[in-house]
C-alpha cells in the first residue's frame, strides 16, 4: 500500500488528496488531505474519483503514426523525428507562423513552460495558446487593464470572513465544489448571498437575492447596480479618491443605466436592482465571484470590466473577505497562463512585444525570440481555413468537442497539412492526427499545478505510465533537443528552477518549498512567504482604473426561426469533453447521456415530454439529445452541457468572438427544438 500526496487533476480549486495504490501498481482509491487549507479533509465527487480513469484500458500506450490513412504503432524516435522533420519542412515552405501550438491547462507548469519555449525558440513562432482562450481570456485582458493582474485577488479562505458574496455567472457548487461548499458554510454563519444567474442553480436556493437576468445582459445589470449605489450614496469615497482613477468617466457612463432601463434589458424588476445595490453597498466586506457566465460572451471583457468597477466603487479590494475573484476552471489553467502559453506574453505576463523582455529571454535561452504576438487559438482555425496555418501541435486538448462551432473546427483540422496530438486517451481530435503521442497522466509524473487562488503546488508520481507513454515534459524535452536546444533536465524540479529565474512572480518558488500545501504567487524571492491577497496597499498597476462599459447585446439572439436561447456549460459529474470522467464508472453512471434542460412550459408548447429524444438545431448544426423538463432554466432558455460527443453542444454554439480577448460566445446562441 502506498499513499501519494498529490493535487486533484480536475478543477482549479486545487484540493490535495492521497492517491492510494496497492503496492503492485494498481490504484485503489483516494483519500482527501486533512491538512490542506482548501480541501481540509474533504473533496467533491470528482476528487473522490480521481483514480478511476487512470488505469482505464483505453489509455494510449504507444506512439501512433498515420500510414496509408490509418494510425499505426510506431517507435518514439520514429514518431518524434517525423514530427520534427514535418514541422521544419512546413516552416521552411510557409514560414514559422504556419505552425500552431496548443498547450494544455491539464498538464504541469513545467510542461507549459517547455511547450511555449519550444514554440518560440524551437520553431520560431508565438503561435502558442491554450484553452484559457475559451474560459478566462476575458479576465486576463480585463483585469490586467483595471488592476494590473488577471488573477483571483483573494483566497478561498477569505470566504470565512466576508459579510456578503455576490456570485455572478458561476455554478460554484458544481464547478468549484469545494469553493461552493465554503459559500454554503458562510451562509450558515449569516453571511449574505446574492446570486446573479438565469438558472436556478443550487446556490440560488440559499441566496438572499436571486437575480435571474437574461443571459448576456450582465453589463446592464452591473451598471444598473452601480448606478443605484451612487444614487443611494453607498460608494466608498475614500477608496475612490485614494486608490482609483477615471471615476468621473465611470459616473457619466452610469447615468443612463436607470433601474427602469436596466429592468427592460435584463428582464428583472427595477426594485430587484435597487435591492441588490443596497445589499452590496452596505456590506462591510463583500466578495465578488465569477466564472464562465461572465467571460464567455462576445462582450466578455466588458463584463469583467463591469465586475472590477463594482469592486473598486465599493472599495472591496486589497483586504480579507473582499476582492474580484475569477474562478479558474481547469486544475492548471492559472498556471498555463502564468507560464506564458499565450500568444502575446511570456511567463508572468511579460509582454512579447516589449524588446527588453525579449532580450532577457533571448539571453536565458540562447536564441532570439519572434517579436510579433501570435495567433489566438480561436483565430487559428480561421487561419487554417485560409491556408495560413498548416501544422498544429495539440497537447492535451480536444478542440473538436470544446471549441464553439464544431463544424468549423472539423473543417479546419481536415484542411491542414499535419496534425500532432499528445494525449492520454484517444479523442475526437486525435482521430484527425497524423501523429499521436501517448502521455503520462497526472498520477504518473511529477510537477506543479497553480490553483485558482494562485497556489503553486505539487503533483506527484504514484505509479509508472502505461506501456510506452511518457511524461509531457520528457516528450517536449526530446523535441527541444531536436531543435538544438539544451534540454537535459533531470526532472521537473530543475525546469521550475529555470522558470523561477526568468519569472519575477515565481522567483522564490522551488520544489523544496512546496512540500506541504504550496505557495501563492507573487513569491519573488526565496524568503518570501507568498501572497494570499493582492493589491493590498496599491494595485499591481498602481491606481485601480475604472473602465466604463456600455451594454452591447449578444451577437445571435432568439428570433422567429430559432426561438430559444441556448446556454451551455458543465455539470458537476463530468469534466469538459468527458475524456476522463466518462471513463470513471460512478461519474459516467450518474450522468450517462447527452441532455438538454428545457422549461416545462416551453416543452408543453412544443409537445415535448420528459426524457424524450429531441432534435436541437442552430444555424451551425443539429444534434439529438434527451429532453429534461425542469424549471432550473427560465422560460425561453435551454441549457446543454458540452461533455457528450453523442450530443455535442458545440455543434450548435456560435463562434462569434469578443474583439479583444477572442473568446467565443458559448453562453448565448439561438436554437429551435423539435421532438423526434
Amino acid at each position, binding site marked *: 500500500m502506498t*499513499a501519494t500526496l498529490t493535487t486533484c487533476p480536475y478543477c482549479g480549486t486545487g484540493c490535495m488528496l492521497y492517491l492510494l495504490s496497492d503496492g503492485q501498481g494498481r490504484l485503489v482509491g483516494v483519500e482527501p488531505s486533512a491538512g490542506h487549507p482548501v480541501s481540509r479533509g474533504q473533496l467533491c465527487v470528482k476528487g473522490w474519483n480521481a483514480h478511476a480513469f487512470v488505469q482505464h484500458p483505453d489509455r494510449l500506450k504507444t506512439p501512433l503514426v498515420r500510414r496509408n490513412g490509418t494510425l499505426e504503432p510506431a517507435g518514439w524516435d520514429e514518431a518524434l523525428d517525423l514530427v520534427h522533420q514535418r514541422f521544419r519542412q512546413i516552416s521552411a515552405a510557409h514560414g514559422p507562423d504556419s505552425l500552431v501550438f496548443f498547450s494544455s491547462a491539464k498538464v504541469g507548469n513545467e510542461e507549459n513552460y517547455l511547450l511555449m519555449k519550444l514554440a518560440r525558440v524551437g520553431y520560431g513562432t508565438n503561435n502558442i495558446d491554450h484553452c484559457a482562450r475559451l474560459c478566462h481570456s476575458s479576465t486576463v485582458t480585463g483585469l490586467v487593464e483595471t488592476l494590473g493582474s488577471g488573477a483571483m485577488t483573494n483566497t478561498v479562505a477569505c470566504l470565512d470572513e466576508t459579510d456578503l458574496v455576490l456570485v455572478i455567472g458561476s455554478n460554484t457548487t458544481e464547478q468549484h465544489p469545494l469553493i461552493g461548499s465554503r459559500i454554503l458554510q458562510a451562509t450558515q454563519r449569516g453571511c449574505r448571498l446574492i446570486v446573479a444567474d438565469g438558472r436556478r442553480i443550487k446556490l440560488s436556493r440559499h441566496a438572499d437575492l436571486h437575480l435571474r437576468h437574461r443571459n448576456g445582459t450582465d453589463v446592464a445589470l452591473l451598471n444598473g447596480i452601480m448606478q443605484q449605489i451612487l444614487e443611494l450614496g453607498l460608494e466608498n469615497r475614500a477608496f475612490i479618491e485614494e486608490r482609483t482613477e477615471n471615476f468621473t468617466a465611470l459616473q457619466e457612463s452610469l447615468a443612463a443605466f436607470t433601474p427602469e432601463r436596466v429592468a427592460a434589458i435584463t428582464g428583472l424588476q427595477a426594485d430587484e436592482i435597487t435591492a441588490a445595490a443596497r445589499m452590496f453597498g452596505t456590506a462591510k466586506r463583500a466578495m465578488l465571484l465569477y466564472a464562465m457566465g461572465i467571460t464567455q460572451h462576445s462582450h466578455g471583457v466588458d463584463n469583467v470590466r463591469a465586475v472590477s468597477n463594482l469592486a473598486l466603487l465599493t472599495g472591496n479590494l486589497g483586504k480579507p473577505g473582499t476582492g474580484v475573484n475569477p474562478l479558474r476552471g481547469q486544475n492548471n489553467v492559472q498556471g498555463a497562463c502564468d507560464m506564458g502559453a499565450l500568444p502575446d506574453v511570456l511567463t508572468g505576463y511579460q509582454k512579447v512585444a516589449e524588446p527588453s523582455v525579449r532580450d532577457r529571454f533571448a539571453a536565458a535561452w540562447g536564441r532570439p525570440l519572434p517579436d510579433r504576438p501570435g495567433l489566438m487559438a480561436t483565430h487559428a482555425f480561421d487561419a487554417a481555413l485560409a491556408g495560413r496555418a498548416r501544422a498544429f501541435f495539440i497537447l492535451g486538448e480536444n478542440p473538436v468537442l470544446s471549441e464553439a462551432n464544431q463544424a468549423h473546427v472539423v473543417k479546419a483540422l481536415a484542411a491542414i497539412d499535419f496534425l500532432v496530438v499528445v494525449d492520454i486517451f484517444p479523442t475526437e481530435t486525435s482521430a484527425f492526427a497524423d501523429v499521436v503521442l501517448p502521455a503520462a497522466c497526472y498520477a504518473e509524473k511529477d510537477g506543479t499545478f497553480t490553483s485558482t487562488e494562485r497556489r503553486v503546488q505539487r503533483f506527484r508520481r504514484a505509479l509508472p505510465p502505461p506501456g510506452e507513454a511518457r511524461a509531457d515534459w520528457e516528450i517536449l524535452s526530446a523535441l527541444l533537443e531536436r531543435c538544438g536546444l539544451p534540454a537535459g533536465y533531470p526532472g521537473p524540479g530543475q525546469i521550475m528552477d529555470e522558470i523561477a529565474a526568468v519569472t519575477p512572480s515565481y522567483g522564490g518558488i522551488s520544489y523544496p518549498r512546496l512540500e506541504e500545501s504550496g505557495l501563492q504567487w507573487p513569491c519573488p524571492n526565496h524568503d518570501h512567504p507568498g501572497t494570499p491577497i493582492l493589491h493590498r496597499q496599491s494595485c499591481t498597476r498602481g491606481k485601480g482604473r475604472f473602465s466604463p462599459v456600455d451594454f452591447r447585446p449578444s451577437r445571435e439572439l432568439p428570433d422567429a426561426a430559432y426561438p430559444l436561447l441556448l446556454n451551455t456549460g458543465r455539470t458537476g459529474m463530468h469534466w469538459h469533453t468527458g475524456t476522463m470522467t466518462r471513463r470513471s464508472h460512478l461519474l459516467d453512471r450518474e450522468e450517462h447521456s447527452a441532455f438538454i434542460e428545457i422549461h416545462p412550459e416551453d416543452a408543453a408548447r412544443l409537445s415535448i415530454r420528459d426524457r424524450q429524444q429531441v432534435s436541437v438545431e442552430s444555424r451551425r448544426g443539429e444534434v439529438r439529445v434527451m429532453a429534461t423538463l425542469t424549471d432550473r432554466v427560465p422560460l425561453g432558455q435551454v441549457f446543454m452541457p458540452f461533455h457528450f460527443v453523442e450530443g455535442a453542444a458545440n455543434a450548435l454554439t456560435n463562434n462569434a468572438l469578443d474583439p479583444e480577448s477572442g473568446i467565443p460566445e458559448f453562453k448565448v446562441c439561438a436554437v429551435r427544438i423539435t421532438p423526434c
Partner: protein
Amino acid sequence: MLKRLDRADLEKLLAALATGYRLLTPQRLADGTRLHRPHGEGALALQGEPVQRKPTEAFFPQHDPLLRIGEQGEVTTCDPPDRPVALFGLNAADLACIAFIDRFFADPPADDHYLARRKDALLVGLTGFAGPGGDFLPPANGMCDLELLALGQNWLGVPWTPRGEALLEGFPDGEQAEVEELQETARTRGNPAQDLLEKAAGLVASEVVPDDFWREIGDRCILCSGCNLACPTCTCFCVEDRQEQAATLRSRVWDSCQFDAFMREASGHNPLGTEALRTRRRIHHKLAADVTRWGEFGCLLCGRCDRVCPTGIGIQAVAAEILARFGA
C-alpha cells in the same frame, strides 16, 4: 491476563506483529493527515483524531477487483494478498464499525471475498488517553484481539482472543485497579454524542421530522458522496466491468446512496429522485432502518461523515439540528 507495557515493550509488540502480519499503524503524514500506513514507513502517531480513512477499507477497499472472465467465459477469482493484515490503533467506535460490517458480510449468503481478507486479520485496539492531544477515549471492552489502554507513557494490555493472549505473553503484569479507573472515567464522562443520536433517532423514527426539513438539508448537499465513502458501516458497492484486451475484469466499487443513479431504474424513474429523499434515506437508514434489522444503530459515531462533509451535514450535525428544531 493483564499486562503493562512501556515504550520499549510496545516496540517489541509491534515488531512481533510485523513478522506475522502486514502491520498497519497510525502515522501522521507531512500535510497533517493521520493515516494507517505500513509500519515503519513513518513515525507512529499514537495519539490523535480517528485515522482519516475508514479502517474497514482493509477488508472492503474502494476499488476491488473480484474476478476475471476470459474469452471462453472461464472465470478466475482475484486472490487477496497472501499475508493477513494487522490493524493497530483502533478506537472503540472503529472496532464497533468493523464488527458491524463483519455481521453484514458474514450474514448468509456470506461474502467470500470479504472473508478471505478478514478471517486471519488481527485487530489491536488503542483506547484510554490516546485521543487528540492525549484526550480520553473510552475502552472498547472487546471487539478486537487485544486492546491497549493508554495511560500516558505506558499501556495496559488486555487480550480478548487466544491470539491476543499469545502476543501479550511475557510482558510484565498490570494492575486491575488501573483498568477499573479507566472504566470509571468512561462511566463518569458518559457519551453525550450517543445520547444526542438516540434522541434524534427517536424523532426520526416517529416521523415528526417534516419533508421540508429534509428538503432544506438536501439543498445543502453538493453530492460529493464523501459521507458514504468515509463511513465504515456503509457497505453498498456497485459493480464495474472493464474490458482488458479479451478478458473482462469485474471489480466492486464503493457506492453512495446520495447518488441519483443509486436507485434510478432503467426507465429513468427514481424512487429516490431528489436530494431531499436521498438525504432523508441516508439518515433514516442508519438511525431507524438498521435498528429494525440489526437491533442497533448503523452509526457508531466514528465522526468521519461530519469531518468529510463539505457543507456540514454529517450525521451528528443533522441529529443536532433535528433535536434543536423538533426536540421540544
